[in-house]
Every structure is written in C-alpha cells, then in structure tokens.
C-alpha cells in the first residue's frame, strides 16, 4: 500500500494509548505542500500526541505514515528532522544554559568542514541574527544566555530554530500562546512567506481568529477520533466549535458588569527593574483590571515583585487600604494574594506529583488537622471538586501532572490558586493554551471571583480577551505604565500605541 503522491504527508489510522487511556483511536490526516493545515480540538483531544508521533518523539501503536507517497518509520526526532520536518513544540524545549544562537542550531550545528571538524560559531551566530531580525527581534539577542530571557522571547527562539531548518513541513503547536500582538503579526508574516515558498505548515491553535486568518484546511479532533476536515475560508467558526465540543457555544466572553465598590488593592511606587519610573495603580472591588503590553514589557516582573517572588527595593502594597509587608511569596499568600504564573511547567507544577497534591499544595494549612496531620480524604475531595469545576481531563486524581495535556495542566495551576481562597488574584496569561470552551469557564470563574468580593488582575497578551473581559486596561512599556484606560475608551489602536510608544 502506498500513499497518494499529491500529499506531502499522509497519516492513516493512527492509534495511541497511554496505559489504559486511549488517546488516539484511528486518526487520518493528509497535508499538501504549501498549505496551512490546522488541527483543532479540546484540551486533551490528542493534538500534541498526534504531532509527537509525527516527529518521532512518541511511537504510534498502530497506523501508517507516508511521506511524499512513501511509507516511513519515524523512530527518533532525528529521523523526522532528516525528512524535513521541523517542529515548534507546545512546551518550551530549550537549553537554558546555552546561548540563543546555540539553541537555534541545536541538533544540526554548522561545521567548518567535514563531519568531524569543529563548529563554525561565527556563521551560526550570523545566521541566527538574520533569523531573529526576520522575527522583528534585536540581533543582539543571539549572544544572550537563553535562560535569561522571558517566556515570550524563548518562544521566539523556538520559532527561529524551526525557521532556520530547511524544512518541507513545519509543525507549530500553539506557537502564539506566549507571544504578544507584535510578535504574533511577525509570525503570521513568516507563515505566509513560508507558504509562498511551498512549505507546508501544520498549525495547532485555540485562537479561532488566527485560524481563520492563516488556515487553508482545518481538521477537527474529538474523543480520539477525527471528526472532519473542512476548508477554512468557506466554513464558519461556530460550526467548528460545535464539531469540536459537540454543542454550540453561546458567547465567547461572558462579561458581567458589577457595581464598582471601594478601592481594594493599591500599589504605590513599585520599581520594576530597569524601568525609568516606578509603577503605581489601584484596583476597586467589582472590576477586572487587565494589564496589556508587548513581550518583555515587564508585566510579569511587576507581578513577581508584588508577590515577593523577586527582591524589591521600593514600593508599598495596600489591601483594603492597609499596607501589607511582603518579602516572600509566603507573605503574599498570607496577605491573601494569589499569583497564577505564566510558565506552568517551570513555576507552576510538580510534574511528578498527582493532581490532588498539585491542587492543594499552596494551601496545605487548610487540610492540616489539630493533630498536625493532613486529612488526605479532604485533599482528595477538594481536588475532585476543582477537577469537576474546571473540567480537567482525564479526571482521576491519581494521574501525575506530567501526563496531562498542556491546557489541562494550565487548569491545574489555576485550581491550585483558587484553592487558596485568596482575596487578590493576579492571573498571568491565564488562558494560555486553553481551548475555547474552557476559556469561557475560566472567564466565568473570574466573574464569580469578582462577584464574591475578590480583586482580579489579568495580565494578558491577547487583546480580544483584555477587551472582552476587563473593565479597565493598564498598558505597560519598558517597566512603566503608559496608559490607564477605562474599557470604553480602550481600542486596539490606543492600546498598541501605548505599548509601542509609537
């Protein structure tokens, strides 16, 4: 049996299960040269698993893969790379200790001569610089140690890495999830250029607008099956959603407006490292405040400074008008602050622990009895409650966090902080990697929090969600707040202007 020659890639009847969990139950997929093929499905639908089979990172249980009409066996990532498949994985896969240009060329370094000769650092550096510029980045980045960059920039390095590979197919698993508007547009441009060159792109995303903009065909997965492959341009996003979740979704941003109360949270003269002036802002009860800005604008740094995660020289923090002294995350939690971090793997999860452990770990006190022992039953019950509420799947608490899909991991991190019963919630990119249906759940949750008298601050690089869910928007640039806009006055243009300074 052979594949169809007109397809660059064909996957037939792909099956995969982890232990008893049947993730893929026979998936067919074909990709043509020069097309952008989108994979859509709920969190845990098996998208990442499917592409990991394609890249040789996982081994399939059954099925065939044809490359340019010929059957291929992909045992290792190197096999796939050799065929001309480049991949940007959902989770960052970088070496923090190496320099940016070394990361970009990792696995296929340039050499001065033959196979055994020494590396050509100079050319690699030059190439890396060119590629970074193409993505709208400063070429100086090439010589930085990768670990020193923020999430967004690290993600850009991953993209650069895929672009420099002379590939026929580039797989992008939620590449824009940690990028902000500007970088996203840069990426779109790249994708279009690649397409023109006849390179195929397999694109995974939960952002429907970008799918609409970039995609040629879309394949929808549900419950381990391929539901349908449709042309993107002639179908409606609402139809996709229905195919994907099995029912229709009434509203994407369930914004609720509450009556504004008194001031609940205030930051005064807080210095974000490297900024020319300190940051001050306040949040009132009944509102959701969004913080927008470009990658590296210092939003995460601001949040970390408030939370006591980084040392902080100046600045005061007030909750309900009373100053709280915060020197460490412990102090912040005790003062009633929760910080939902952006990097779920690095800062959020214990990958080798079970879900109940992860969900309850920031609030162990609550489960500790007078005997100083922890009530394991209560922990389990509490975890089950959150798993139900946030629709985390698979839903057994015995599972290790490592074995969850990206979006479900994100939900676990959110659950951990909801469990602390804090008064102030700082969400840093809370919906990164979450599917459309689940996003709505998270937004509802925010509404609920506000309704129950909590303060909610949302850092986000996604303008639609800022515009759709917030009552007020702060825009940051270079560590400063450059705009403070009520939602009525906030338009995409005004926010971008404040973010870029242009």
């Amino acid at each position: 049996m052979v594949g169809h020659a007109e397809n660059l890639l064909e996957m037939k009847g792909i099956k995969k299960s982890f232990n008893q969990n049947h993730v893929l139950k026979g998936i067919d997929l074909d990709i043509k040269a020069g097309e952008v093929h989108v994979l859509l499905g709920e969190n845990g639908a098996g998208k990442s698993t499917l592409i990991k089979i394609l890249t040789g990172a996982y081994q399939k249980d059954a099925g065939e893969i044809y490359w340019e009409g010929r059957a291929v066996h992909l045992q290792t990532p190197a096999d796939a790379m050799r065929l001309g498949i480049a991949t940007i994985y959902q989770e960052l896969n970088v070496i923090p200790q190496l320099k940016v240009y070394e990361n970009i060329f990792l696995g296929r370094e340039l050499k001065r001569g033959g196979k055994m000769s020494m590396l050509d650092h100079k050319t690699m550096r030059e190439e890396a610089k060119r590629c970074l510029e193409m993505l709208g980045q400063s070429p100086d980045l090439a010589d930085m140690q990768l670990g020193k960059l923020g999430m967004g920039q690290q993600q850009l390095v991953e993209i650069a890495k895929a672009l420099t590979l002379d590939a026929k197919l580039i797989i992008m698993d939620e590449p824009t999830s940690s990028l902000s508007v500007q970088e996203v547009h840069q990426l779109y441009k790249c994708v279009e250029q690649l397409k023109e060159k006849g390179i195929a792109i397999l694109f995974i995303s939960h952002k429907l607008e970008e799918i609409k903009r970039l995609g040629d065909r879309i394949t929808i997965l549900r419950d381990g099956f391929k539901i349908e492959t449709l042309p993107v341009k002639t179908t409606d996003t609402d139809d996709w959603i229905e195919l994907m979740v099995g029912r229709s979704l009434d509203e994407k941003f369930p914004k609720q407006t509450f009556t504004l109360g008194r001031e609940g949270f205030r930051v005064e003269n807080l210095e974000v490292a490297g900024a020319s002036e300190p940051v001050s802002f306040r949040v009132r009860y009944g509102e959701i405040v969004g913080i927008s800005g470009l990658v590296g604008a210092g939003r995460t740094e601001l949040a970390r400074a408030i939370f006591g995660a980084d040392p902080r020289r100046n600045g005061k923090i007030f909750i309900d008008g009373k100053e709280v002294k915060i020197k460490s995350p412990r102090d912040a939690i005790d003062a009633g602050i929760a910080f939902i971090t952006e990097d779920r793997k690095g800062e959020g999860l214990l990958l080798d622990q079970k879900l109940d452990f992860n969900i309850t770990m920031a609030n162990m006190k609550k489960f500790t009895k007078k005997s100083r022992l922890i009530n394991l039953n209560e922990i389990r019950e509490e975890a089950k409650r959150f798993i139900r509420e946030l629709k985390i799947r698979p839903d057994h608490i015995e599972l290790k966090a490592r074995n969850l899909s990206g979006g479900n991991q994100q939900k676990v991190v959110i659950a951990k902080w909801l469990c602390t019963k804090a008064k102030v919630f700082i969400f840093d990119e809370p919906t990164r990697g979450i599917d459309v249906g689940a996003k709505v759940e998270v937004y509802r949750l925010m509404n609920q929090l506000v309704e129950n008298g909590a303060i909610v601050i949302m850092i986000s690089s996604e303008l639609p969600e800022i515009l759709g869910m917030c009552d007020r928007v702060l825009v940051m640039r270079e560590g400063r707040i450059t705009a403070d806009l009520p939602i009525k006055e906030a338009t995409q243009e005004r926010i971008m202007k404040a973010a870029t300074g242009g």
Partner: protein
Amino acid sequence: MSQVAVQTKNEAVEKNRAFKRIISKFGPLIGLILLTAVLTILSPKFLTINNVMNIARQSSINALLAIGMLLPILTAGIDLSVGSLLALSIMMMGIVTVNMGMHPLLGILVCLSVGAAFGWLNGILLTKLRLPHPFISTLGTMNIARGIALIVTGAAPIAGFPYMIQFLGREFVGPIPVSFLLVIVVYVFFHIFLTRTQTGRYIYAIGGNPEAARLSGINIDRVLIIVYTISGFMAGLAGLVMVGRVNSAFPLAGLSYELDAIAAVIIGGASFLGGVGTVWGTLIGALIIAVLRNGLNLLNVSADFQMTVIGAVIIAAVFVDVLRQRKSKKA
C-alpha cells in the same frame, strides 16, 4: 446484557490497575524476593530464624542512615556527612558517659544532638551561605566532623558503655532484635511524616520543582534546614545502635557508610533529581544490601569476589526494577 459485560470488563480493568499500582509501589520488593529465593536455594542456613534475625540486626544501622538520607535526596540534595557525623556523635557520647562518667541519658542526648547540630549546620551552609550544592557543604562537614572525632580522644577508641546505652543495639524482644523494632518504628514515623504532614509534603514539592514550591509559599530554607537536621539526627541515632552492637566507639566508625545509605535509597526507587522516593522503598533497599552481604558471607564467597558480586547485584537489583516498570508501562 452487553451493559453487564462492559461493567465486568471495567471492573477487571480496575482490578488490573490496582494490582499494577501495588506492584509499582512495592517495586524493589521483587528484587529482594528474587535475591532471597536464590540465596535460599544456595544455602540451607539462609532462611533460618536465626539468620533472618541476623540480617534484621545487620541492616538496622544502614536502614537508619538511609531513611535520614532519603530526605535530602527527595529535595534533590545529598548528605555525604552522615558516616562522619555518626562517628563524632558516638565519640562525644563516649567522652560524656565513659570518660566523664555522666548519666547515660545525658550521653544519649549528647549523641543525638551532636548529630542534629551538625546536620543543622549542613542546612545553614546550604541555605544561608548559599553554597551551590549540598555535595560540597556536606563533603566539607564530612571532613570536619571526622577530624574532630579523631582529635577529641587523640584517635583512641572508647569502650565499656553503660547498659542503657547498649540497650537499643544489643537487646532482643523474643527473637527480634530491639534495633530492628526501632527501625520499624522509625520508618512508620517517617512514612507518616512524609505523607501526612505539611513539612513532609513540602519536601517532595521542593525536590519536584523548587521554583514552583517557592511561589506556592513554601519557605524552602526552613524546610531544607529541617531536612539536614533530621539527617544528622538519624546519623546520631544510627551511632547509638552501633555502640550498642559493639560496645565501643571509635573515630573511624561509619567510614563511607554514606555510600551504602545512598545506595539503599536509590535501589529503593528514589531519584537523584528529587521529588520521587518512598519510605518503604528505602527499607527494601537497605534490606537488599544486608541480605546480599549476609548471603555472600554464608556462601563463603572470597572477599575479592564479594566485591565483584556486590557490584553486579546492585546493578541487577535496580535493573529488575527498571524492567518491571517498563513492562507495566507497556501493558
């Protein structure tokens, strides 16, 4: 009817899963059972009550050190100083009780607190001085403690301890050595500590992802100091048992015991990368080592071959575990 069939199938799957969970929990046990089976066949003396009690007694010092070592390893650290701390603790106890003739209880107190105090120092060096890895701080205190142990009596051993001090290492309840009962009690305590207390869980959290732990409000420094203090304390306790067994304290006691303790922890399924490992695994690790040594002695394997065999069995014991895990994953 098909409904029923599905249910039965699901139940079977559930049972199968539970069975696998047990297997995977008691994984290293298989290695121990295999080893025991082989030795029972090779030597008729092996599976006698007398010899089993020998093994229980012989394993107890390492078992106590190993459970102390489990904590640093769970936090992705290590404690190389335990052997030296054992020596220093018992020398100090000897000075207090034998040379100075003070009350044995005071001696025991000294023994345990010297261990704990040096362990605390390890923790301080690591957290407050921010030395890069406990390998270095504990390598340092390993030398320091051993040096002091040698200095305090000019390298002379101390013998003739009071009965009360010898009790733990020497006495029996029926056929069972008190030292092994102590091991059981200590292990149960640590099991509860690690699975049912806040600090215990924090130890796993720190090993699993220190940054996530810190951002979840865990005071890492405090937990690490507790961890190393406990490890030091256990070295003192192991020393107490040793003194009971041999009724003497000598400054080279416990030399390179850290290796056996670490081996027990790792054979028991813990990971150097932190966050993974159990109390019962560690016990089985310690028993595997003791059974192996005892078996080779019973078989009169010559010393040079013993080394080779021990090396091979250490590898084999861990390999059995690896095979098992691989199988359980496949199914």
